[in-house]
């Protein structure tokens, strides 16, 4: 998990020093451009929650240990609490608020409700962002894969069996033509 940190990507970027004061930053979240002023130390998670009012991504630990803050950057799952917002300029950020189509919930969202794959709901946006990505990644082929690749998302309410079932349902529905 993480944004593209390869040497090639690093070379493409211009090494400019910005900060420590607030900098103008354009974030592209769920297809919308947001011009905000951010200190470079602001995490993507805090930028989303406190500056853009997109509070669907949750802060469970702010330390990269719980997965509640999982979002996609350029289509890959990342922990928004360990990602600096300013590093996401020019990238596509997708959050739980952006997975519905035309106001219709994503099938994974519906499957989570159907299988009661949550209780308090605090881990749920992160679980769903991982769950959708898991199928895209091809990591939802077997029960063991699902359990393993969902293990970065803690659910303290322990809805794990329901989460697995929801993912299997969505995977199988996709495979059926």
């Amino acid at each position: 998990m993480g944004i593209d940190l390869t040497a090639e990507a690093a070379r493409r970027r211009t090494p400019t020093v910005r900060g420590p004061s607030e900098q103008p930053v354009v974030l592209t979240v769920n297809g919308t451009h947001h011009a905000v002023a951010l200190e470079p130390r602001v995490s993507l998670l805090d930028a989303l929650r406190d500056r853009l009012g997109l509070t669907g991504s949750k802060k469970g630990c702010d330390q990269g240990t719980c997965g509640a803050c999982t979002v996609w950057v350029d289509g890959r799952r990342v922990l928004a609490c360990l990602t600096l917002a300013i590093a996401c300029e020019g990238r596509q950020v997708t959050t739980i608020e952006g997975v519905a189509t035309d106001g219709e919930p994503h099938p994974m969202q519906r499957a989570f409700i159907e299988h009661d794959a949550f209780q308090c709901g605090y881990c749920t946006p992160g679980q769903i962002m991982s769950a959708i990505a898991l199928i895209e990644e091809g990591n939802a082929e077997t029960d063991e894969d699902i359990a393993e690749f969902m293990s970065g998302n803690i659910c303290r309410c322990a809805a794990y069996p329901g989460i697995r079932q929801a993912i299997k349902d969505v995977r199988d529905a996709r495979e059926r033509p």
Partner: protein
Amino acid sequence: MNTAIGRPVDRVDGHAKVTGGARYTAEISLPGLTYAAVVGARIPSGRVESVDASRALSAGGVLAVLTHENLPKIAGQPRLLPSLLGAAAPGQSFFPMQDAAVHYAGQPVALVVAESHEQAQYAASLVDVAYRREPSITAIDEGRDRVYEAQRLFGGLMPGRDERGDVGTALAEAPVRIEAGYRFAANHHNALEPPATTAVWEDGRLTLYDSTMGIRATQLTVAHLLGLPLSHVRVITHFVGGGFGSKAMTWPHVTLAAMAARHVGRPVRLALTRAQTYTSNGHREEQEQRISLGATRDGRLTAIRHHKLSITSHFDDWAEPATGVSSQLYDVEHYEGVHSLIHGNTMTPTFTRGPGETLGVFVLETAMDELAYELGVDPVELRLRNHARTDPRGNPWSSDGLAECLRLGAERFGWHGRDPRPRARRDGDWLIGTGMAAAAYPVAFFMPEQRARARVYEDGSAVVQTGTQEFGTGVLTVATQVAADALGLPLESVRFEAGDTDLPNTSAAVGSAGAGMVSAAVHAAATALRDRLVAMAVTDADSPLHGADPAAVEVADGRMRLRDRPETGETYADLMIRRRLADAEEVGSWTPPPLTTPHGLLTFGAQFAEVAVDPGLGLIRVRRMTGVFAPGRVLNPKLARSQLMGGMVWGLSQALLEGNEMDTRHGRWGASNLGEYLVPVNADIPEITVEFVEVEDDVVPLGIKGVGEIGQVGAAAAVANAVFHATGRRLRRLPLAAELVMDPPASS
């Protein structure tokens, strides 16, 4: 008739939760919002010698640094009482930053308020606190020479000792005796949402957005500590990201947020960091337990002695009560339960899911497994033989179901035909074992009157309200079901509102009591409203129901009709429009039966587990679990199943994963994050079967005994007994250390 009750309907707040639309406390945005960060003491005992806040104050965006030198004194002293009682519930009899004394590591010693979250966090790191460290006691091993027997527990609510008969003689004379001691590491709740509070003052009145299991407890506590009229404190909570006991009391940070907001004259959000939750909202205390069972050769228990030793704070006699089940579950004439304590340098421990009884039952049910081996009796049969028919006072259970749970569980799990010999089953490198345990949990009944309000509009839609809060229990859903059922309305026509102390009052939802008491209040309000509308109809000359006996009227789909002539009737809407009533409303209340009710009050269940142990690597994997429970009326089996399953996972986790050790040199917890304090992840959890046994109960509200804790009780013992079956080793320390199941056995 409408039968919303008992249907496995989806959560009414499901959409909000899966779309990110559900707002939790730290997500409330207010104009002019500022951010607070707590500085916690780095020593467990001693004094703050000086605080140099100059660097913090000159950092960007900082509005204030509060310490014991400039924080106003609180107006009322905190006193430890469970929030369910409906009084102020500050969690501990100590409020920080009133003087320079430090009683535990993490105790707030300064509070920084700044314009942004980042600025507050950074400035908090710049506050320079000089301490004078004094000797501390932070673990049982350090305080063995200061053990005292607790007279009363729980702020005086419960006696520390429970005795009957002559346990010493009975044990001495018992033909068979089992005796063992156990050690349990401290547990932390780790609700996924760290507690947060946002405080706003307006014209001397305070509004708190609080992440709590009891908005009413927050209101009472903060009003008490700040000397405010209750009418000047309003508490709002929309969604709470899990509680498990950590948010059952109103901990100091809540009041500190209010004090900070008053100081800076702007709204303040105080969100604890994950690390701070380990020292800010209580924990399950480190403890040791000893049990002695006396029995006859034919497997009848004659005596139980059950002692607990634990460490509490300097200011409170807190012990999670561990003997409520061991004193009642089995029919034993001679019993002795004792709680002993050591005053130490920790904060006051608190309720943690399945408080007290989960470990008490672990000890009891592990000993029962040993007794079964000693006697050569099947473990299920041993429980059946000893289950008490009444409570120790001779009162019948309000409802039972234990025997049915044991039998059904054994059948579903495939218990029969089990070869009881340890190390008899293998699967490749894995040793396979199965184990079981009985489960029971006391039904808590000491809450005051609970109220709710029901309103029907002239279009036949309804709003039902009560001041409870949603933290994952599904209360919004089950209360909607109860209201729809009582009003005779379709589920979709009823909206249930909660989470605001301006609504009718209910107590904190703790001790598995939430669903029962809220449902009872909602039921009372909705029934009162239906009765009123029916009474209106039968006395209305223009109503088709005019002159009918109200008792002969039922309501379905919003239409009042004669039970035996359903074609005669009219809708609420018809009646109300004709009477020019835009809405009609009733408040209903429910008061629990007196504590002296002549009934035994336990919820029963049975747990079964299969484990695989790799003795080469010290790995333990739970392969499957089956839990059967008799929680009284189940309002929504889908949600109840989830909660019971969650409890079973907590039991598994208590056995195998969770524990924190004190680093006694520094007097600080060894772990303070989710990387080091292990909680289960998806791959740890097998498929879990949950079954219900139906029991009728007309003592508890609406027949509901609750599902919050019983799922956890007995689960750890079933896992540990399965590990014994697999390996021949008894687990007497939780969480289990890998070396205990590795070959060759560790000498301990």
